[in-house]
């Protein structure tokens, strides 16, 4: 079974530039999560999708971050404009369904450096 795919793996940009990350979840997984992991901290949820609807985006900085999940499969996360504090690893995860008993499967992450 193929895992969660993410691209790019690394990205270096200057502040005020824009950047986009892509995630392809495990086939058939209805729920998709984006997490932000700052160095030395645990991952923090940014947004959760159930199929193509948003379940939770309470921690997404909506003035600069946006995300969409086209047709309930792939997802993109965008930052525009980027700030220095956005330097982090952005993790995508998927699970078959929402709910606390479901295991989340994580992708390799995209490491973003903002200069």
């Amino acid at each position, binding site marked *: 079974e193929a895992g969660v795919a993410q691209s790019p793996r690394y990205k270096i940009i200057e502040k005020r530039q824009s950047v986009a990350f892509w995630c392809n979840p495990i086939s058939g997984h209805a729920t998709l999560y984006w997490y932000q992991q700052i160095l030395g901290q*645990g991952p923090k949820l940014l947004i959760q999708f159930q199929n193509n609807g948003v379940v939770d985006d309470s921690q997404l900085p909506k003035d600069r971050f946006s995300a969409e999940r086209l047709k309930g499969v792939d997802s993109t996360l965008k930052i525009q404009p980027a700030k220095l504090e956005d330097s982090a690893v952005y993790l995508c995860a998927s699970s078959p369904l929402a*709910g606390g008993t479901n*295991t989340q499967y994580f992708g390799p992450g995209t490491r973003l450096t903002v200069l």
Partner: protein
Amino acid sequence: AQSVSQHNHHVILSEAASLELGCNYSYGGTVNLFWYVQYPGQHLQLLLKYFSGDPLVKGIKGFEAEFIKSKFSFNLRKPSVQWSDTAEYFCALGSSNTGKLIFGQGTTLQVKP
């Protein structure tokens, strides 16, 4: 508010030593608890999880964790660590409704051969 706290940020052990990593959570409702591991250069993967039933849960690679409700704890243990256990370990609390994970800050384990 829900939160997870991991007390040990960096642990160094010799091979064959016993391991216990602390995890405490704050939440008054039904808990779903997880331990995830990230080996160097690899992605986060599940070690074990607790939803209900036997509070002692066994995971992969000889790891186990014990849920103690009265202490709000879910500590990870392994009787004898190996060099290949060198990794970062994350405790997480799962939302019963949405499945959203709230992670602790992680513990870096270094095992010396």
